């Protein structure tokens, strides 16, 4: 396996010379998404800095800022602090009833050891454990975290020994076939035990997402306060029902390159349809003062996002919204009114979301996010108006065609449409807009398949997969991704060929591109193919990407 970035360097110059930096398909000066990369943030979690740890307080509250801007009268509607889900302090201190699990389990030491060897836990590709800094189990990806109190005690001991004796932070442990990565975030300890080929940074990214998922249901303010008041608190009481969100998120992250690249997938749509959809939303919502974001999504892809001026969303917040919608069947049956904290947007408070599917015959879900907690009915009215407008302008048909991968669309089977038989798969990220396009746009059935397969247990198996899709390619690209995003010696262009396939990874100021070719592909041949590929993406960019950044 000749994997050398050096080999590629001269070619890299050639490629750049041929194409120039002017070809950046999908580039757009104004972005709905905050294109700021977070790779460095995850990498910095791996470099020890004891002082900066535990100082997990968000800077300023964006939500209060918006509230004061729209002239929200705090006496009338209550300020954000009164929005806290657990407003009664006494309920925390009174909640000892179910928090004596540790003690109970302590009596069954023998059973516990056996449990660690049970089929529920052994031979998994990746474990994720979340515990409080006091060592109380909160979440385990597999098995029953109740029975893992002993293991959590060990993890807590490891962390605190390194911290107290060495004045240092435990970041990771590597064994022959296994990586253990630790992430200390505020009052929580998150641990990944992985036998996959993911890098430490990629594992930290996943743990950070898991942490953000918890913040998303509780807010950081509340999470911190709970543990300030009772270090021994059993957080599962407050998280009940949210385990499912973490479960889904962990699976989602393994299969969707969007996480690997820190980008958001858009649903490919004819330019005109997307414009009509955006107009339907802006024209309906421009009078609703406290609306911060209106987001239409379908099948983990963004259709449009209309926002309050000045504010953008970070891809990781959008991923959490995708995850929420994807893992909640109940949104399909009724209009929901849901508190949602978006950690990158404002970790200290909740936005209130009106969440509903556009109609029974269209799997697009509309989220209207506001800072006003009593706004359900005006938003409900707005949703019905928007749905009517979309139906009348045939947008629902366009969305359904894209979701069902209508054969006539060029984006349904991009490789066939581009006509370069040597390309097996590609993924392209436009950096200025943080948007992603792959040759295998996720279709709904495939997601379902993956989930079902995964339900069987996530055991390590040697399965021969016949047709590779995004999900399998993600595994192959991981290593290239981490070389390209490596903070110390980043590679610009990687060309690697072996008997299975040829992979080219290339990063410029404007984009990131990963392409899998047939085995034994020549370099100059590959470069010509990439040239054609980029021109195709450029030609279809209005359909593939969201090229504007509408506001209310």
């Amino acid at each position: 396996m000749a994997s050398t970035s050096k080999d590629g360097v001269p070619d890299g110059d050639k490629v750049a010379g041929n194409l120039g930096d002017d070809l950046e398909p999908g580039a757009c000066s104004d972005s709905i998404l905050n294109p700021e990369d977070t790779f460095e943030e995850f990498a910095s979690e791996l470099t020890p800095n004891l002082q900066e740890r535990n100082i997990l307080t968000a800077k300023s509250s964006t939500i209060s800022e918006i509230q004061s801007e729209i002239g929200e009268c705090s006496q009338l509607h209550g300020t954000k602090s009164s929005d806290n889900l657990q407003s009664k302090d006494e309920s925390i201190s009174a909640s000892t009833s179910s928090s004596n699990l540790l003690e109970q389990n302590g009596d069954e030491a023998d059973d516990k050891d056996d449990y660690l060897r049970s089929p529920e836990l052994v031979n998994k590709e990746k474990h994720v454990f979340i515990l409080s800094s006091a060592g109380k189990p909160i979440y385990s990806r597999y098995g029953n975290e109740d029975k893992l109190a002993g293991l959590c005690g060990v993890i807590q001991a490891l962390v605190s020994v390194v911290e107290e004796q060495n004045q240092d932070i435990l970041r990771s442990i590597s064994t022959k076939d296994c990586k253990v990565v630790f992430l200390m975030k505020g009052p929580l300890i998150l641990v990944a035990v992985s036998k996959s080929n993911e890098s430490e940074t990629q594992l930290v990214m996943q743990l950070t997402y898991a942490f953000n998922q918890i913040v998303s249901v509780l807010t950081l303010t509340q999470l911190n306060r709970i543990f300030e008041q009772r270090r021994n608190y059993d957080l599962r009481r407050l998280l009940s029902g949210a385990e499912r969100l973490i479960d889904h998120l962990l699976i989602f992250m393994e299969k969707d390159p969007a996480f690997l690249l820190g980008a958001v997938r858009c649903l490919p749509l004819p330019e005109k349809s997307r414009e009509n959809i955006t107009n339907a939303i802006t024209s309906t919502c421009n009078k609703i003062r406290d609306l911060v974001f209106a987001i239409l999504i379908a099948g983990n892809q963004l259709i449009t996002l209309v926002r309050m001026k000045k504010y953008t969303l970070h891809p990781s917040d959008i991923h959490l919204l995708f995850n929420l919608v994807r893992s909640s069947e109940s949104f399909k049956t009724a209009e929901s009114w849901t508190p949602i904290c978006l950690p990158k947007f404002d970790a200290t408070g909740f936005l209130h979301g009106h969440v509903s599917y556009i109609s029974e015959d269209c799997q697009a879900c509309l989220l209207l996010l506001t800072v006003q907690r009593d706004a359900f009915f005006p938003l409900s009215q707005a949703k019905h108006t928007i749905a009517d407008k979309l139906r009348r302008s045939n947008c629902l048909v366009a969305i359904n065609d894209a979701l069902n991968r209508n054969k006539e669309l060029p984006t349904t089977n991009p490789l066939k449409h581009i006509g370069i038989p040597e390309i097996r798969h590609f993924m392209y990220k436009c950096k200025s807009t943080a948007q992603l396009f792959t040759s295998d746009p996720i279709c709904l059935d495939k997601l379902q398949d993956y989930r079902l397969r995964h339900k069987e247990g996530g055991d390590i198996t040697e399965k021969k997969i016949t047709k590779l899709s995004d999900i399998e390619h993600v595994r192959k690209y991981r290593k290239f991704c981490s070389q390209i995003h490596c903070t110390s010696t980043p590679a610009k262009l990687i060309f690697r060929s072996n008997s299975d396939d040829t992979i080219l990874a290339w990063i410029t100021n404007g984009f990131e591109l990963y392409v899998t070719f047939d085995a034994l592909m020549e370099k100059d041949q590959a470069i010509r193919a990439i040239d054609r590929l980029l021109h195709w993406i450029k030609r279809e960019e209005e359909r593939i990407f969201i090229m504007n950044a509408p506001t209310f």
Partner: protein
Amino acid sequence: MSRCDFKIVLLGSEHVGKTSLVLRFVNCRFNSGTPYQNTIGAAFCAKTMHSNGKDLNIGIWDTAGSERYEAMTRMYYRGAHAAIICYDPCCASSWARLRHWLAELRTVEEDCKVYLCGTKKDLLDTNSTREVPEDIIATYSQGLNGHYLTSSKTGENVEELFQKIVDDCVADRDLMQKVEESRVQLAKEQEKDKSYCLC
């Protein structure tokens, strides 16, 4: 969706089946295939019912049972005309929380009509053991507006429960007078501004 004449709120511990009850009532279906998922925040459904020759639009708030949303649930009690407090007869802890819901409700909305609803009757009829004794329930429900034992799976007593609530509301003169007033008020407002709806 237009205005609602009555506001009904569903309360109760998690996993007692509030969402299933609403789905059975509004959509007349029960999906035994879908695994349990907790409600996040709250969900709103509306349905038109008839009582005493009148057409009435009722809005139902299905609240989340998890402790995490407890303080938020309060905003759904506000202005509720009726509340259905659900418990699972085969789960003693869901009954224990009942008193808490009732007290919460009374502090916010004193005149709210309260109905007790035992869920999952089909399970009780087959093989599950009752954990909440019937005499305790009987004593407790005396001070309330009614008690029903329902099954969202078979639909037993679901329609009856909601019909009773609407009938009681229609029979309440003060309440109906307010409803009529707000209808008139709303009609006026709609002429002025058609884009908003109040409930």
